């Protein structure tokens, strides 16, 4: 797994993709931080993370659009599938590489915390909780994008399907707050990642949502493993 992880991380930073993701993410976060905190005078990052969770579906597909498409186009995928690497190792290596890039980007936003610390009295526990929650949310989004990318034969299809899947999850969160239809409301609540994330923004750190995010990610990674394994039999 580490072979794939290392190769993917190297690819992110030797091509524009990693920098595009970081650039877009930091641009949006910078705008939101400026609006909510520097201009608006907010003393925490709840506004930034709250808004970010609802617009991040536009950014995360960038991480995964080339995850499988390039190797399929270049004829490398069959070699990987018949190498000593297992399908699980391939999927996890790629997934953790994408999460690593996301984590590095989040670390860069630590400069906002430094600014808040210098000019205010931020509640650090809540901020740390928000960061952990947002990382778990992002990791869950990345797992969905990994699965949809594993189904796609080209980058465009991977991007569109990832975007669509994440829009669906964000909309599920929005509808779950307003709909009162039995069964459907429960299903939407289960899919509403952003709703589970709300607790972190409010400074509540419970094991339940953490386990939920990990389980959600694991489910979609399992689907990705099955999807990739089936390509061997094409």
């Amino acid at each position, binding site marked *: 797994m580490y072979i794939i992880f290392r190769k993917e991380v190297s*690819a992110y930073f*030797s*091509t524009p993709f990693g920098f595009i993701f970081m650039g877009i993410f930091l641009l949006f976060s910078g705008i939101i931080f400026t609006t909510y905190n520097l201009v608006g005078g907010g003393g925490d990052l709840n506004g930034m993370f709250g808004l970010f969770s609802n617009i991040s579906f536009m950014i995360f597909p960038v991480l995964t659009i080339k995850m499988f498409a390039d190797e399929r186009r270049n004829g*490398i995928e*069959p070699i990987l599938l018949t190498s000593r690497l297992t399908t699980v190792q391939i999927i996890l290596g790629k997934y953790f590489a994408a999460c690593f890039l996301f984590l590095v980007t989040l670390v860069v936003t630590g400069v906002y915390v430094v600014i808040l610390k210098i000019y205010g009295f931020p509640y650090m526990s809540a901020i740390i909780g928000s960061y952990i929650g947002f990382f778990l949310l992002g990791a869950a989004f990345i797992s969905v994008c990994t699965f949809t990318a594993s189904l796609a034969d080209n980058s465009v299809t991977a991007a569109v399907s990832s975007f669509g899947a994440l829009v669906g999850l964000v909309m599920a969160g929005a509808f779950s707050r307003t709909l009162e239809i039995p069964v459907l409301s429960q299903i939407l609540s289960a899919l509403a990642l952003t709703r589970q994330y709300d607790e972190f923004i409010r400074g509540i750190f419970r094991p339940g949502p953490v386990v939920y995010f990990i389980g959600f990610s694991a489910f979609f990674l399992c689907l990705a493993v099955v999807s990739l394994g089936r390509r061997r039999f094409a």
Partner: protein
Amino acid sequence: MIEVKELSKYYGDKPGVMNVNFSIDSGEAVGLLGPNGAGKTTILKMLASQMLPSAGSITIEGIDAIINPKESARCIGFLPEIPPLYPDMDVNSYLQFFAEIKGIESKGRAAHLNEIMEMTSIVDVKGRLIKNLSKGYRQRVGLAQALIGFPPVLILDEPTVGLDPKQITEVRSLIKKLAQEHTVILSSHILSEVKMICSRILIVNGGRLILQDRVENLEKSGRSFTIRVKGGRRQVKKILSAVPGVREVTPADDPAGESAGYCRFLVIGEAGDALREAIFRKLASENLPIVELHTMGNSLEDIFLEVTV
């Protein structure tokens, strides 16, 4: 070394490869010829465990390639028609990556890769990004990837396509040298290239293996001919196969004739007129008229054109 039995591949209900049988001994260099769409690449991908057959079996070095694809893939170095490259990696990093996933121990890995880079003459470009290399160099990098671990079997799918004459000469010389120490299966349209490198030829057309023999045997005068007979295909094939001196009887396409009760075969046997005379007498005794008998030309090109009509 390699045993293929009743190998078939269907894309939906469309046949790609049908009932192909052949075996390749250790150290042999075999050429796989055929027109576009004949099924060559499909056969090679199935041999390299990169595609699952619809039916049949493949055994490589005693390993069932369908049940144990990873084990059999370790015995094979495969260079597809389009080399599997990471354009944004440099040559050295690319080969390091493939050496790792192929399980080359880290202790001797650098020396192993250096040896392969020298064999394929890519040492001077090892630090360059693959996307900046010429087609010839990319082909050689792909070949270097196939050589990692020095697998006993090399499968090369049209390794010289798109190269300039100088690059073609260099790659052919390299393959000929590799054929001395590896079992090589080479797919190509270029008959002279196959003749230069390979000792045995398999000709594929319409998904079927229609001819297999040693190059020198194929080019012997009068050994191969096509025959068109009025009669049932199975009956005629059985009779022809039983004639002494006949080595191989392969059905050939006869789309216009089949509906009218004719069948066409490619026959390989002993050189000379005696065989044709024996066939004539046998078919006449069975009341099966010969309507056409055409001796194939001596050159590989003539034979190829004749059997792939």
